[in-house]
């Protein structure tokens, strides 16, 4: 079966990344495919490359990156939800004239393994998948 995953819970303060990753790994191990993981609402914070958990804590950002590299699953962040919350690629930082005067710096806060797209990408993927599963 082909799954489309929607993640809306925040980094660290919610269990959404942990549960979503366990689901994705189990689905992949059982021979199912994940068309994409879409991050919306507070879920966009899970793409923040400057997240710094303690050594004995779950590292959601690195875990997403590792899962995506192992399975070639696209990680997609909603562009408007991300910009509202300061999650931006370097290009977006420059386009919006932030850069040096911004807390995110000119490198952008978005981890390079994640891409940005609109809500249309979420709907397109859901049309092409059999099930959508949301992790709040």
């Amino acid at each position, binding site marked *: 079966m082909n799954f489309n995953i929607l993640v809306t819970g925040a980094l660290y303060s919610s269990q959404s990344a942990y549960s979503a990753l366990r689901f994705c790994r189990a689905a992949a191990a059982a021979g199912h495919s994940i068309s994409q993981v879409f991050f*919306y609402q507070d879920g966009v914070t899970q793409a923040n490359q400057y997240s710094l958990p303690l050594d004995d804590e779950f590292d959601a950002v690195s875990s997403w990156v590792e899962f995506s590299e192992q399975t070639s699953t696209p990680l997609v962040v909603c562009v408007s939800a991300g910009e509202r919350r300061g999650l931006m690629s370097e290009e977006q930082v420059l386009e919006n004239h932030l850069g040096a005067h911004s807390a995110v710096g000119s490198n952008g806060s978005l981890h390079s393994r994640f891409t940005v797209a609109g809500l*249309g990408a*979420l*709907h397109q993927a859901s049309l092409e998948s059999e099930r959508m599963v949301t992790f*709040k």
Partner: protein
Amino acid sequence: MSAQKYLYVITKAPYSNATGIEALDAILIGASFELDVSVLFLHDGVFQLKANQNCALSDSSLPAIKQFTKTYKALEDFGVDELYVQEQSLAARGLGESDLLAPVKLVNNQSIKALIAEQDQVFTF
């Protein structure tokens, strides 16, 4: 092939968080895909539809979250078929159909089960 059926479920009240306004963005995108779209208001989500909301501040500064809920009334124009409201959620919060800003269809748990069963996709906010 008939249009796919998409249901958007809203479970949070407006203004204390951005759930409603961001759910509405997703609903409008869904409607633009010419899907068979409907919305279900559940639990505190029924507060989204409360009539006579007023976000205006006396010093005319911007509210934390803009007053977006009038858009629910316009969803019909975007091809959204139906707004469903769980009747128990409404009654538990001392509200009735006449307190709402748009015409809705009241549903009980039995009909919600059937409603979800007939969908192709369900988005929960």
